[in-house]
């Protein structure tokens, strides 16, 4: 029951002939070589595989590729060239919000998703926005501080 699925990843058109129930995560990592998208749990609990689909944050590990037909996917590899990424990166570095790094790309995508919708979030809104992204190293507070800092330093970008 393979079918043709066509979508845009980081600005480039991708055509896949495959099982429509295949995971977007595997399409991104194995087919597109975008290994910045991580697999932490495989069941939508940890957020390490977070990407944006038409601007909306999704767990790519439980997202069948049939659902991205005709849509645009943004992964960390597409986001990292942007000015907004640079602001977030500097804030994460300054706050000490990176340790083992395995949650970091997904965490940045969650932050980007929040700031697109709400460029001036308060602390509680940041906590809510990243609550689907698990981190076992930092205890989260430095990440919260980083996102708040980015929202101030990046004023006007989002």
């Amino acid at each position: 029951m393979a079918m043709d699925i066509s979508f845009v990843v980081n600005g480039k058109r991708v055509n896949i002939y495959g099982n429509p129930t295949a995971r977007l995560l595997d399409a991104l990592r194995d087919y597109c070589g975008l290994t910045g998208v991580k697999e932490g749990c495989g069941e939508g609990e940890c957020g390490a595989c977070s990407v944006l689909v038409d601007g909306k944050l999704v767990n790519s590990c439980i997202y069948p590729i049939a659902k991205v037909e005709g849509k645009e996917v943004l992964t960390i590899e597409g986001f990292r060239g942007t000015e907004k990424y640079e602001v977030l990166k500097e804030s994460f570095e300054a706050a000490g919000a990176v340790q083992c790094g395995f949650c970091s790309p997904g965490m940045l995508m969650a932050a980007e998703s929040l700031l697109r919708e709400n460029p001036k979030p308060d602390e509680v809104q940041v906590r809510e926005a990243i609550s689907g992204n698990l981190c076992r190293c930092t205890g989260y507070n430095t990440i919260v501080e980083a996102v708040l800092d980015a929202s101030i330093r990046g004023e006007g970008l989002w």
Partner: protein
Amino acid sequence: MRDSISKPITRVDAADKLSGAACYIGDMRLEDMLYAKTLRAAEPRAKLISIEYPELPEGYFVVDKRDVPGENRVKMLIDDQPFFAEEVVNYIGEPIALIVGKDKEVINKLLEDIKVEYERLQPILCIDNITAPPIYGENDSFADYSLNKGDLQKARAGAAYVYEGIYETGYQEQFYMEPQGVIAEFKEGKVSIYGSIQCPYYVKNAVVSCLGSAPEDVRIVQAATGGAFGGKEDYPSLLAGQAACAAIKAGKPVCLLLDRNEDLEATTKRHPAKITLKSYIDESCRILGLEADIALDAGAYAGISGVVLQRAMFAAAGVYNIENLSIRGKAIATNKAVSGAFRGFGSPQAFFAIEMHMEHAAKAIGIDPLQYKLSNLVKQGDRSTTNGILRDKILLPEMVDRVLEMSGFTEKRKSFKTERAVGALKGIGLSMFFHGCGFTGNGEQDHIKAKVRLTKDIHDRVEILIANVEMGQGVQTTMRKIAAAAMELPIDSIIFANPDTDRVPDSGPTVASRTTVIVGKLVYDAALKLKEKWQAGAASEVEEQYKYPQGFEWDNDSFSGDAYTNYSWGVNAVEVELDPITYESTIKGVWTVFDIGNPIDDRLVRGQIDGGIVQGLGYASMEVMENLQGRFRQRTSTDYIIPTAMDIPEIKSELMCEPFKYGPYGAKGLGELTLVGAPIAYALAVENALSINIDTLPVRPEHLMEVAADGNGY
């Protein structure tokens, strides 16, 4: 005293990790690489009668005990654990074989079609009243130790009060964000292992013994490692041996990555513990003596349980000066996944027991628990549990004062009492604890004998060659800082790549809060040596090896002397509010003071503090893992809950620094200490909110509801 080295610098590995460029083991693709998945035991204890494999397509392989060219035993302290099960299986999830091939879906289908016939044996599933035949030895214990100090008879005779309690703690899963994995490659007679690992040389020794090969024919390279917390200390040795056998058989590189649920079910976790304490107290409320009995649930194989047990025993008296001690410890074999290392390594269990015990004893006597604790504190010059001398100044009284002040402890205790009278369930608790840094007992001087090397090339770049790994804690940054500061060089002239055993000497594993204090000091000493013989434009090399500092002594047969050369200390307060109907808790605040000597980088230190505290709060409150008939009830990431950003309040931390003269720039150990105190302070806060005694971790709302309903003890 704070040194300029404490000033934070940007982590050297942050940019690659944020951008997704960092290469973890699951991101590596070798040419022609095959995948492997594990056939696991479905019974907790059984004889393997037969295994019927489906017909394998071309290019697919079964790898099992018959494919181990050397010893089918994972090299550890006791070599009892097979890489692949032989006649029996001893826990659900124990590996029996690998299915190896190109397509993961085909492998999964093949696994489903394997038929394993078992003959069930009576399993051992708890640590009390064992009736089934032993799994190990005659007494079913991997370790059975006793430790005596002073004369407990004297304490018994002089006691005005005797208080006894039993304390239990549960499993805790490391839940590093990146599940375990390795890739093995076999080329021209040499096996290379790439992996998410803490201890490259442990893996190397295990693979050498598994393959029966010469040491130079095995090479281990660490990949970017997505968290470990002890969970990647010993288990990767098993995976590496299996993958190596598979790569040799298939003649192609083999990638063995666990998925999350396999990792939860089959890899090591924190030991559940049952600790009985009995203290003998005189008229003036001085503790004369303590009897302790520590039982650890070690799981099916020995692993490193004996060492975990030692650390738990040596911490049994907590931060208190008790002259007469009798401590017994056992690591009991059960038909469950192997218990292993997890940040704290036996001490979170032991400190929970003694801190709750002290609190409850004071309440029973009718005195203020905090005053009782303070009046019995150890101080400089006192003797440790193992009769070692506590040589450095102990700042606990000042630390307690500061935490009381930061948290508003005393006022809150008063006002919460008033609020409780009108139904608001608020409480605050305070814990005191230490962590002995570096290997326990004779580990550093007799077993590890750490060696480090620094090289300088003709461009005057210096490379740090050590076997310790970056796993999130920041070692690539701290080691560069130490070397750069010692040689007065800019940080970017120092290179520190992920360790490759073909290039780095054995500086020991990345465990036991030893990397900064032990290996960091060797790097510092080597850097000074290199600086002394520095010739611009000329290549050179220096080595340093660990020397046991003069004046310390340890006897491993009697467990007497200095169990550690240095101790870090902590005081934590936690405030909670409980829902009066559901008894679910909200953590309102956390306040901490730590003495970790001189910090090497303030920002990395905060990272360790926050992260350890949150893992500790998870352990105390929500991380429930129960084993029923040999099977974990929480074996998916949906069932096993760890804290999210919503569960954590602001954490206010300060440092007080008593430097260690044998640490680099006066630094002591840090990583594990930070997890030890928060669970206790949390439990004491809940205890305060409900005016009950808590003796079990995790503290579960459903248990609290039962207590509230029937009015009996917890």
